C-alpha cells in the first residue's frame, strides 16, 4: 500500500458566488488552485480548495488516500472518489473526496498491471488488455497499489478472468467474476476496402395506421 498524501487545504465559503459556483471556481483555477469537495459519513459536504501542485504530487504518488490539513488545524482522512478533467485531459478541474476511517470497508478502482511477457505474442498473437482498472472491495487502510497479473503462461487463445486474479488478503473483486481481464487473440486479417457505389442506409419509415381499423 502506498503512503498517505498529506495536503494542506483551504476551506471555501459554502454560500454560492462567495466560495462556490462556476464564477468562483474559475477564479480559483486562475490562481493555481483546484476546487474540491469532501462528503460522506452523513456529515455536511465541505467545499475546499488546494494547490494544483499538491494534487499533481498526489497523482504522481498514485495514492488513493489523502490526509487533508484544514485551516483550523482539523485533519480529515479521505479517499479520492472522482477526478474531473478538462476536455483535453490536461488539467484537473475538480476533485471529490469521500470521508473514510481506517478500518472501513470501501469500494475503489485499482489499476491492473501486467507482469512478464506473453508467449502467445511470440507465437503470432495479439495481447489485448480489456480491463485496465478493476473495482475492488477492501479496507481503507489496505488498498493495494495495483493488481499484478502474471501473463507468462498466456498462449494464443488463452485468457485471464477476474476470478483467476491473485488478490491480496481482504481484497475482493466487485462485479462479474467471469469478466475478461486480458487475453491473447489471433491477428485480425486485413479486410480490403470494397467500393460501395450507390449503397445508402435504409430510411426508417413511420408505421401508418389505417383509419378504417
Amino acid at each position, binding site marked *: 500500500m502506498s503512503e498517505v498524501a498529506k495536503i494542506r487545504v483551504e476551506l471555501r465559503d459554502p454560500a454560492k458566488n462567495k466560495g462556490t459556483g462556476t464564477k468562483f471556481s474559475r477564479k480559483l483555477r486562475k490562481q493555481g488552485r483546484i476546487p474540491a469537495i469532501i462528503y460522506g459519513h452523513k456529515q455536511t459536504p465541505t467545499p475546499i480548495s488546494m494547490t494544483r501542485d499538491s494534487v499533481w504530487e498526489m497523482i504522481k504518488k498514485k495514492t488513493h488516500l489523502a490526509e487533508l490539513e484544514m485551516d483550523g488545524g482539523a485533519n480529515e482522512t479521505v479517499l479520492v472518489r472522482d477526478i474531473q478533467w478538462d476536455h483535453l485531459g490536461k488539467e484537473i478541474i475538480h476533485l471529490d473526496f469521500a470521508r473514510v476511517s481506517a478500518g472501513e470497508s470501501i469500494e475503489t478502482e485499482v489499476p491492473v498491471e501486467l507482469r512478464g511477457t506473453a508467449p502467445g505474442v511470440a507465437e503470432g498473437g495479439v495481447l489485448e488488455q480489456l480491463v*485496465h482498472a478493476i473495482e475492488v472491495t477492501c479496507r481503507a487502510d489496505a488498498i493495494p497499489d495495483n493488481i499484478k497479473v502474471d501473463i507468462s503462461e498466456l498462449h494464443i487463445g488463452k485468457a485471464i478472468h477476474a476470478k483467476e486474479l491473485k488478490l491480496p488478503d481482504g481484497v475482493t473483486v466487485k462485479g462479474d467474476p467471469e469478466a475478461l481481464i486480458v487475453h491473447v487473440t489471433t491477428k485480425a486479417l486485413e479486410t480490403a476496402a470494397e467500393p460501395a457505389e450507390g449503397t445508402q442506409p435504409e430510411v426508417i419509415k413511420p408505421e401508418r395506421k389505417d383509419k378504417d381499423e
Partner: protein
Amino acid sequence: MPLMPKRVKFRKSQKGRVRGNATRGNYVAFGEFGLQSLEPGKISAQTIEAGRIVGSQSIKGGGKLYIRIFPHKSVTSIPAETRMGKGKGEVEYWAAVVKPGTVLFELGGVSEEVARATFARVAYKLPVRCRFVSRRPTL
C-alpha cells in the same frame, strides 16, 4: 467499405455548426494510447477508412486499433453547373462530427514508440490538428 449508418430516420440533415468541446469520448477508454482532436471539424467516412488502413499497416497486426468515431452525419452537395434551387442536393458522403478533445483512434498491445509513430502517420491523413494521448491515471 467506408463506414455509414445501417438505418436512418432521415436521409439528409442540416449542415449545423460544430460548437463547444467534447464532453464525451474525450479520454482513452479501450487501448493504452489515443489520437485526440484539437480542433472542431467533420471527418468523412473515407478519411476514417484511410486512417484505419494506414494505422493497421503501421502496426503490422501487432496490436489492436480502435476507431472511436462514427460517421452519423450525411453531407449533401449539388452537382456542378446546376442552377440554384430545385431542392437539396443528394447525399455525397457521410461524416463524423468531431469536437476538440474527441479521441479519434486508440491503440492497444503496442509500445509507446510504435503508437507514436503510427498515430503520426494517421494524423497526417486527418483534416484536424491532433495530439498523442495516454490513459488518464487511476486513483
